[in-house]
């Protein structure tokens, strides 16, 4: 495999040496050179995995290399800015995640979802409620009773950084139960894997991240899933009730991933890209990959995706303001 790329590189080098510039100067329709796909999160994470599988399928659809470029750090601001400020020529696209609906409320950037042309929403994972298998809480109702009866701040939760998406998920649930936002103390962590590990080690009481992220620990019998923050039960966890079923709360939250481009894409390029993205989404390869990884499928075309992003922007903004996490 390395050999193949190496041979390809050598062949390409030879070809350019022999035929020189003319081959490349001949103009053809979009796309005629490699496309960059910017992933605002690090290699190894879920967003990176989705970006890489998409890139490899799009590459076949479009007939040019699609290279994944990780631009990480700054709670996603760096990467999202890189996508938004790139030339809207179709040669830079990226994976835009739900954090785009949070960072401007926090006052970290002026960037909002309005700076992007959304091509599609390709995945969504509902939040969940998980506790350690050694804990006394057998159901979400047990947990809610404890949250209400224990003194303020006695229970601890973790799963993202301060003001991160799962922190908001928990706050949204608390607010929907008319509980104050500081009823549970948030312990910041570097992502949900770290939060779940800490919960199993006895450091915190619950983790409200997506059940998919706790899958291996659930299967290992170390973590007990209590509820899913979705309207319907999740296919992979049919025994886990929705929050509505378990405690009657209307709160739902799903983290999604979209394929997007900088605002102002030419119409023909946008149509071509959106078509390729839809084909890639429906490919057997993508469907199988997502099922194997345990990621939730969610399709929304350009218009619907923009609507979902806009409505989440509003609801997350509301929660952040109520919880005092939004910048003045």
């Amino acid at each position, binding site marked *: 495999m390395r050999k193949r*790329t*190496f041979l390809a*590189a050598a062949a*390409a*080098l030879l070809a*350019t040496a022999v035929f*020189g*510039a003319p*081959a*490349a*100067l001949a103009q053809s329709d979009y796309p005629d*050179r*490699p496309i*960059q796909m910017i992933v605002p999160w690090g290699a190894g994470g879920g967003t990176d995995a989705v970006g890489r599988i998409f890139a490899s399928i799009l590459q076949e659809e479009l007939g040019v*290399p699609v*290279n*994944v*470029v990780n631009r990480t750090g700054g709670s996603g601001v760096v990467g999202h800015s890189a996508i938004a400020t790139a030339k809207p020529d179709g040669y830079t696209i990226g994976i835009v995640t739900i954090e785009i609906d949070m960072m401007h409320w926090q006052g970290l950037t002026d960037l909002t979802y309005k700076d992007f042309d959304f091509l599609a929403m390709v995945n969504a994972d509902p939040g969940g409620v998980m506790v350690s298998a050694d804990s006394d809480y057998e159901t979400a109702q047990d947990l809610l009773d404890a949250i209400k009866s224990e003194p303020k*701040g006695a229970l601890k939760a973790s799963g993202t950084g*301060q003001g991160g998406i799962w922190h908001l998920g928990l706050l949204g649930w608390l607010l929907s139960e008319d509980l104050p936002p*500081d009823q549970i*103390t948030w312990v*910041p962590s570097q992502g949900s894997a770290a939060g779940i590990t800490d919960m199993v080690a006895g450091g915190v009481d619950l983790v409200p991240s997506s059940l998919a992220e706790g899958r291996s620990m659930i299967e290992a019998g170390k973590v007990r899933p209590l509820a899913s923050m979705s309207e319907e039960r999740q296919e992979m966890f049919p025994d886990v009730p929705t929050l509505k079923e378990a405690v009657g709360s209307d709160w739902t939250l799903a983290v999604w991933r979209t394929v997007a481009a900088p605002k102002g894409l030419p119409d023909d390029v946008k149509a071509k890209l959106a078509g390729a993205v839809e084909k890639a989404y429906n490919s057997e390869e993508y469907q199988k990959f997502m099922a194997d990884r345990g990621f939730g499928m969610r399709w929304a075309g350009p218009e619907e995706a923009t609507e979902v992003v806009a409505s989440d922007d509003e609801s997350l903004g509301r929660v952040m303001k109520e919880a*005092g996490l939004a910048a003045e």
Partner: protein
Amino acid sequence: MKFNDFVLGVLVLIGAAAILVSARNFSPIPGQAYGAETMPNAIGIVAAGLGIFMMAKSALMGFQGRAVALADWAKSPMAVVGVAMALALIGVYIVFSERVGFVPIAFLILLVFMLTLRTRIIVAVPVAIFATILVQQTFGRLLLVPLPRNDFLSFLW
């Protein structure tokens, strides 16, 4: 530039003060006693202690060494020009690489730096060409690093 222990201690103390002052802009996590200011404060306090310790120790030992001494190499024009050139060339890359593209700028950096270090031009030119192509091909093609591109010489891409 070489500093003696006393001056180094003063510098550490100044740094500590700057950190401690700036940490006042940071606030604890809501509802908690600790937060963004904790770590800068801790670093500042340890640094302040260290700075005072170094100053005191140096004073007790009679301020050994010149306060600020210029290293020997600073007397050699060739060395100074070489260092300045290396730093300037990195600066040139930062400012111009996006506009000019990787290939011309890499070639320029290699050639100018080699000539500054008195490599013969008959060696410098082929090495610069070869190394540019090598880096461009391995990083750009094999490792998929998105090196800055430009239409000029972009057939190498």
